[in-house]
């Protein structure tokens, strides 16, 4: 046999080996994943330190989201254009020390719900009697989310209702009812928004409000003059809704100042969150945009400066649908999680975990996407996600919901979607050019992700193992200690699906600590207050948030898992006013209510 022939045979074997290698690797990975998912509650508790049990019905929550029916001109692609609106926010609206749940509905005439925590394991919908249920009336649009903040510092959390339609502000009247104050506040007549957050951008002690438009605000989705309402590009669109920053004037009125202070974008915003990323004492603003890049606005206390490209988060365009901050390495620095789309063989955008680069800080801070390295990249058609220590082991885990449109399981719209989405802007931008859905699914019936942080730089999906096996079209995720047990429960709002409440059971070996903060010089909700916990020689920072994730708001109080036998050193609170307060050796396994010192 000649040398050339032998070489050719060897090459052939190597060639076949290379082709087969991915299949073998795939099979091994699938087997490992299957092993991880086979478990029961007791095993999950022993292996992962927690398990989740869906208890909505048992807790008296029987809410099913309804999607809007928009202008009939959009009928062929109605499942797609009416695919958002399910939102959930946690609030203690009556200040009884127990978290309540507000959930949005999106069909004209449908009712939102405010589930008052009955403190006995049950919830009761009191939205109707308190005046925040019937908010989706004809001619006013429909709800797409809600965020709570005490804008007048009277001690009670007020409600801003995000809508495709007339945005609404409801004043909380001492926990006994709500008064609609939208006109007095000076809100515009119509915004097609999916995100809003409360934050005090200028540190004046009054909560301001950011609202990110999705569809252009001059579009009434129920009465269209044109079908040219779609994005003009799948990843570079700039024909979305405008952004609003409502500066709180302190007399119940707000002034819209976005352009004046440097926020001027028409990207299709889906999520926003604010946190002090540079240690300046001013909250910076992160905006995740569909059909384009994310935007990061540095805040100098007076003006915002868009630094997406400069910091690295705003270069590769994807389909941003979530913005959540978490100190995942216990280093006192926030990473940002942005969800995107991944569909096998068609579109692998991958979610982004923006981690601050070592050696960069302040205005020169740079971020790198380490989602793949940490195992939180692929989550299907991802939507809402939140960081929280689900097993109280001292590191932040990540809960992600997903699934876009679940209709006929056997038929997919992906072919038509990819066909049009890649086409010229004149084609993609007109709803008439999109093929009809005809009952097909688009990334539907997807498995959720519960990524457990192993503390060593890897997240492992344990969703199936810990009891999260629903396949609804998830949108919003909110975390809260609903039953004051020192465990973070998970509430998930699903598009055209039920509101799910996953009650968390955590191994008692792991300890925890919670902080309920009350601002005095700072805003009363203490949004923007930052707590840094020091224990066992490590630290973790968390910040009180006025909205994060997708169409969601977590509980106001901050929850830290501490692991076994924690040696707590101190908690350092930096209030939005700039005051710094240190609590030495706060006791574990209890809630600490802290008022900002005078």
């Amino acid at each position, binding site marked *: 046999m000649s040398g*050339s022939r032998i*070489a*050719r045979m060897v*090459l*052939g074997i*190597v*060639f076949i080996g*290379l*082709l087969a*290698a*991915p*299949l073998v690797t*795939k099979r091994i990975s699938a087997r490992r994943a299957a092993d991880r998912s086979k478990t029961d509650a007791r095993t999950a508790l022993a292996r992962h330190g927690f398990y989740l049990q869906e208890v909505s019905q048992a807790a008296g929550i029987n809410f099913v989201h309804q999607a809007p029916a928009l202008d009939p001109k959009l009928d062929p692609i109605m499942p797609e254009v009416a695919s958002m609106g399910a939102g959930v926010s946690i609030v203690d609206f009556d200040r009884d020390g127990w978290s309540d749940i507000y959930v949005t509905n999106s069909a004209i005439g449908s009712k939102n719900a405010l589930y008052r925590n009955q403190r006995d394991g049950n919830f009761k919908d009191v939205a109707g009697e308190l005046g925040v249920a019937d908010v989706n009336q004809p001619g006013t649009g429909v709800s797409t989310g809600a965020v709570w903040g005490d804008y007048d510092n009277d001690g009670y959390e007020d409600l801003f209702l995000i809508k495709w339609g007339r945005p609404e502000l409801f004043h909380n009247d001492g926990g006994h009812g709500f008064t609609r104050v939208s006109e007095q506040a000076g809100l515009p007549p119509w915004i097609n928004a999916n995100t809003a957050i409360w934050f005090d951008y200028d540190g004046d002690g009054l909560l301001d409000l950011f609202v990110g438009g999705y569809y252009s605000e001059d579009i009434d989705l129920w009465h269209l003059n044109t079908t040219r309402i779609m994005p*003009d*590009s*799948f*990843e*570079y669109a700039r024909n979305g809704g405008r952004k609003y920053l409502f500066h709180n004037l302190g007399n119940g009125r707000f002034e819209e100042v976005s352009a004046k202070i440097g926020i001027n974008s028409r990207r299709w915003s889906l999520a926003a969150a604010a946190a002090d990323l540079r240690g300046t004492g001013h909250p910076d603003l992160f905006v995740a945009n569909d059909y384009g*890049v994310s935007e990061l606005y540095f805040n100098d206390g007076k003006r915002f400066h868009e630094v997406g490209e400069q910091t690295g988060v705003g*270069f*590769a*365009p994807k389909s941003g649908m979530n913005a959540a901050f978490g100190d995942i390495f216990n280093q006192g620095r926030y990473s940002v999680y942005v969800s995107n789309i991944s*569909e*096998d*063989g*068609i*579109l*692998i955008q*991958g979610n982004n975990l923006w981690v601050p680069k070592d050696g960069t800080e302040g205005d020169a801070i740079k971020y790198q996407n380490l*989602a*793949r390295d940490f195992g939180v*990249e*692929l989550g299907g058609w991802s939507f809402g996600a939140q960081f929280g220590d689900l097993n109280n082991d001292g590191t932040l885990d990540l809960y992600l919901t997903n699934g876009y449109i679940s209709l006929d399981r056997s038929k*997919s719209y*992906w*072919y*038509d979607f*990819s*066909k*049009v*989405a*890649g*086409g*010229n*802007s*004149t*084609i*993609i931008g*007109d709803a*008439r*050019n*999109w*093929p*009809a859905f005809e009952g097909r699914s688009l990334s539907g019936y997807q498995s959720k992700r519960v990524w457990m942080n192993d503390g060593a730089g890897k997240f492992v999906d344990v969703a199936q193992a810990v009891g999260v096996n629903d396949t609804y079209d998830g949108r919003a995720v909110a975390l809260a200690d609903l039953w004051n047990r020192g465990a973070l429960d998970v509430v998930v709002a699903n598009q055209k699906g039920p509101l799910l409440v996953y009650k968390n059971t955590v191994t008692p070996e792991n300890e925890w600590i919670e902080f309920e903060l009350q601002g005095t010089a700072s805003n009363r909700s203490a949004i923007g207050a930052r707590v840094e916990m020091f224990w066992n020689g490590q630290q973790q920072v968390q910040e009180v948030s006025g909205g994060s994730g997708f169409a969601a708001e977590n509980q106001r109080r901050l929850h830290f898992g501490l692991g076994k036998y924690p040696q707590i050193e101190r908690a350092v609170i930096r209030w939005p006013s700039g005051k710094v307060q240190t609590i030495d050796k706060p006791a574990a396994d209890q809630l600490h209510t802290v008022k900002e010192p005078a």
Partner: protein
Amino acid sequence: MSQPVSETAATRPPAGGWKQWVSLDNRYIAPIFITCILLAGHLSFGILESYQKTLLAIVVSIATEMVLGRIFFHKWLHPASAYITGISVGILVRSPAFWPYALCSAISIMSKYVLRVKGRHIWNPSNFGISAMLFLVPETVASLSIQWGNYLLPMVVIWILGSVIIWRLRRFHITGIYVASFIAFAFLRSWITGSPWQSEIAPITGPMYQLFIFFMITDPKTTVRSKAWQCVVVFLIALVEMVMRLQQIVYAPFYALFIVGPTAMLIEIWIDSRRASLAKAAAH
């Protein structure tokens, strides 16, 4: 993709004086063109999430070609063809991982050496590599489809530049027939499925097709020799693609070329062989 060269430096008369500087060796035209597409796409739209991945694809492609060329042809091959394959893989493969870029490049180049009939390789290298990756590891790999601006101007620039270059390389008829066939079939599909005709035309206005029509289907090494048959084959590619599109196969063009291209090559090789046998018999 391989190098669409019909005329090489060796066969052209030498140019003298200033012409020597402005008249570019045809071997470099395609690499320069595809590099321009890459740079324009990235600088204007950021199509590459990572320079490193594209670089990895190019390096693996060239390295594989160098090594295999040395082993099997006992010489260092010109890297232009491997460069095009590598850069095509870098543009067309979309994966968050690094290994698919290296694997796809390696498979693409190796296919030229393994899958040979009568001394000719029958698959367009990058078409083979990308099709294999999409088929084998769809959970990790997708192809460029929507990660580019949906605006007309960049496409018009690519169409004009690409057409001029392909014309110069005397392969414009292949691209022209394919585009005409695609458009005709788009209307036919629209009539059959009831989808808006704009949605059926849409894919060819996207970035993936620009590489497909200017580089893949025109590859001289993996197309039949006769101009008339080239037209027939490219028409058949469009036809098979249409059938696949009716089955809602997202990467129909890749798969159509994957099937039709080698089939046409095999038929040509068989005909050549038969003719040679007949000629030999007649001579005796």
